[in-house]
């Protein structure tokens, strides 16, 4: 050992890929990551929130806010479920494309044109035709608009191999400005705010106005799970996603599969837009979707593109969001701080996947253990 030249040090550790990990260990790592994230959040909160510095004993309230935000009152709980349903619906819509390794980042725009289309139908036809017919026409318009928004990038990708990530992303801006344009046309006052429609409202089941939406999305989850795992279409999506070469080798028409799947993905985004437009807002603005089209990407990825798992991941993200809102209310903080807290926890959750897939080995320690 004495012959080693200065500077010739052995590396301290190295990373190796795990081949298999028991499920409980993987979940252990994930839960640990959430705990660590919470801990770091606590420290950050203590450093930045004045009210917490003055009364450190309120740190318990800080953590309790996450539960209070989602389950505090019955109204909050239903809102929690409704928000999950909308987020989940968009995530489900993106999933067939993701399974095909088609990185559809245009969920926001596809959903927004869905909202726009159904409100447009409502705006022009509302009151002139029977309500059920109006609702059906609104639905058709939403599905068509979403599908069209998904179709354009799909055709270009299938025919000329364009990059779908950029294309779908750009389509979001087109959608946003299209909404802005129609608001100019529709709102004569120039305020840019479209008053709620009097017609074209989805019926309420029982006494709760959210129940129907929740049930629709739940049914969609099951249907999509079956579609992706047990149908020929779903199988084709998986094969094309994994390797276009394999698909061609067995005579699948990969272009057809890409276009068909994106039509579906866009149409389902359109459905989410319909649920927002006809089920909740009865109006449209450039913020109707509010970034959920992007959050949905994370919901789908975190669930490893498994529709059933997405119920969990969308729930988790919604829990964090409402918790953050509760914190800003309880501790009188505004602006970006609640988002920082959500960001920290998500960072830990996503980062934990690295430790699920890789192992860190410390060389020194191992050597000593051998001796």
């Amino acid at each position, binding site marked *: 050992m004495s*012959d*080693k030249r200065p500077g010739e040090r052995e590396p301290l550790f190295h990373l*190796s890929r795990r*081949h298999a990990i028991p499920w409980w260990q993987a979940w252990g790592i994930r839960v640990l990551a959430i705990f660590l994230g919470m801990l770091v959040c606590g420290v950050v909160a203590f450093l930045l929130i004045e009210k917490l510095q003055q009364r450190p004993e309120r740190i318990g309230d800080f953590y309790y806010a996450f539960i209070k935000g989602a389950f505090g009152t019955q109204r909050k709980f239903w809102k929690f479920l409704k928000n999950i349903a909308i987020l989940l619906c968009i995530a489900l819509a993106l999933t067939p494309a993701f399974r095909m390794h088609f990185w559809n980042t245009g969920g926001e725009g596809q959903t927004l044109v869905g909202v726009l289309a159904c409100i447009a139908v409502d705006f022009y036809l509302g009151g002139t035709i029977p309500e059920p017919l109006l609702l059906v026409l609104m639905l058709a318009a939403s599905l068509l608009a979403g599908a069209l928004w998904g179709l354009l990038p799909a055709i270009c990708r299938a025919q000329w191999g364009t990059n779908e990530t950029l294309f779908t992303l750009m389509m979001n801006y087109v959608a946003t400005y299209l909404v802005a344009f129609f608001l100019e046309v529709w709102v004569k006052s120039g305020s840019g705010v479209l008053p709620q429609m009097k017609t074209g409202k989805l019926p309420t089941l029982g006494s709760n106005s959210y129940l129907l939406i929740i049930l629709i999305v739940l049914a969609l989850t099951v249907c999509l799970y079956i579609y992706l795992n047990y149908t020929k279409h779903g199988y084709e999506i998986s094969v094309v996603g994994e*390797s276009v070469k*394999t698909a061609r080798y067995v005579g699948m*028409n990969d272009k057809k599969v890409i276009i068909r799947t994106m039509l579906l993905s866009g149409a389902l985004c359109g459905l989410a837009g319909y649920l927002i437009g006809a089920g909740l807002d009865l109006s449209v603005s450039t913020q109707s979707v509010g970034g959920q089209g992007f959050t949905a990407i994370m919901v789908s990825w975190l669930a490893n593109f498994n529709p059933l798992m997405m119920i969990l991941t969308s729930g988790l993200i919604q829990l964090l969001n409402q918790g953050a809102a509760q914190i800003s209310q309880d501790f009188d903080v505004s602006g970006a701080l609640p988002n920082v807290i959500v960001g920290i926890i998500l960072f830990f959750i996503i980062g934990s996947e690295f430790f699920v897939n890789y192992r860190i080995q410390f060389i020194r320690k191992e050597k000593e253990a051998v001796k």
Partner: protein
Amino acid sequence: MGDGKLEKQLAMQMRGITKRFGPILANDHVDLDVYRGEILAVLGENGCGKTTLMNMIAGIYFPDEGHILIDGKEVVIRSPKDAFEHKIGMIHQHFKLVDLFTAAENIVLGIEEKGEYNLKKVNARVAEISQKYGFHLDPTKKIYDMSVSEKQTVEILKVLYRGADILILDEPTAVLTPQEITRLFSVLRRMRDDGKSILIITHKLNEVLEVSDRVAILRKGEHVATVNTAETSEAELTELMVGKKIDLNISRSDPVNPQPRLIVRDLNLVSPEGLQVLRDISFTANGGEILGIAGIAGSGQRELLDTIAGLQKPASGEIVFHNPKKDKPVTFFHKSLKRVRELGKAHAFHDRKGNEVSFEGMKRRQIRKWVESGDVLFKEDEVMDLRNKNPLEIRQLGIHLSFVPEDRLGMGLVASMNITDNMMLRSYRKGSAGMLNRKHPREQAEEIVRDLEISTPSLTTPVRKLSGGNVQKVLVGREIAFTPKVLMAAYPVRGLDINSSYAIYNLLNHQKEQGVAVIFVGEDLDVLLALCDRILVMNGGKVTGIVDARMATKEEIGLLMTKSERREERAANE
């Protein structure tokens, strides 16, 4: 040599080298000595850890445990740069050269030397080294103008230029013709006589016996033995490598009644980049025969199979499939009802009495019943043109053309799917509803796992996690389960261990005996000569000869493999 051995000095020692990848132990406490002035062959099956071991000497991996000593002093090699400082150079299987640079420019690339950059001096120095060891290389030639063998020479010169005393060559002969191998070996011997230590990684026994002084054998990550080449035999080496005795003979039966099955005439293919990759290819593959295809990698073998399989559209030429169906009953096993109807309209059938069969005005159920009674016979052999048909159309014609592509996990199989889902690739369209039927594929998967002795934790394990041999068995098993009439296999034993290779040879032989026309693209000429009935040799997208495998020699095939290249060179010089 006997006396010389006593004077030999140790160049490098490895002590207790261990490397793990996850739960896999790639190298388990390997001790290995390398002397000055020797050629040491590192022999072992794929996956035995020989490349991993060499990568640790070359600074690409770092050992988990153990020490490396150079000239008796312990060293730490953390990067290829460290390795060069200790005068170790590795020539990788995949060359790492800049195409647009000349040989000399590639050779000095990355050397940080003081003083001015003088290419003339470099050229002179390269020429000097070339001369010393007997390389033929023009230092001013660009890489893109070079053959594979010349590129390899540049790689070797690169490490010699850096003053390497220990050279590691990873499978250097895999891409060379027999003639080029002979030339390489003579260069290696000269370097040895100059006092260099040469480590050559290989799994080809005849080469080991030809060129090395000693052989180190690795098995499952362990160093099982080192033997003097002069005192060993092919049988002993195999036994050490595999751990048990193995019969190295491939049985070859004589073809029974070979009938033309697939006829290719004047086939031309132009790649999307506008290069002519296949030129006037003509041959016939017979049922009950194995037709080998030999050639240097990239001579058009892959494109030829792709074109036959319907994956590429030929510019011109014919691909004709002959189905010896005359007076044989029609079955729904090969033909859909729709196809049978079409053929009926085209007057293709007669019944057992010789009357023409017409399905005019019959219901589907009636046609089905009639065909299933076995009373509907083909009038003539079926002759079908496969040109401009995609794989699905070929299948819908009822032609059972199986294809084991070179790229197993990227083309033949879906790596992330399990065995059952991979079995379905060919047959998932069966059944009219939109739902998948996994019952039959699962049974099929169970069957091939059992029959081909595939070792897998379960049927739900992604095929990506299986070993190379098992992956190949899944692929070949699926293609055979499809009861082919023509079976094309591209490099089906590449990367497989000896046992798996022989299992694949047996499967191909079995198919041949069933009357299948087998087309086998191979790289090991010994195997091609032992397994095939005829061998078609390709070079530069052309057929340079079709020889009888029972009569031909390796040298003869080697000449054909480089034939047109030389003629073109001569033409260019004139």
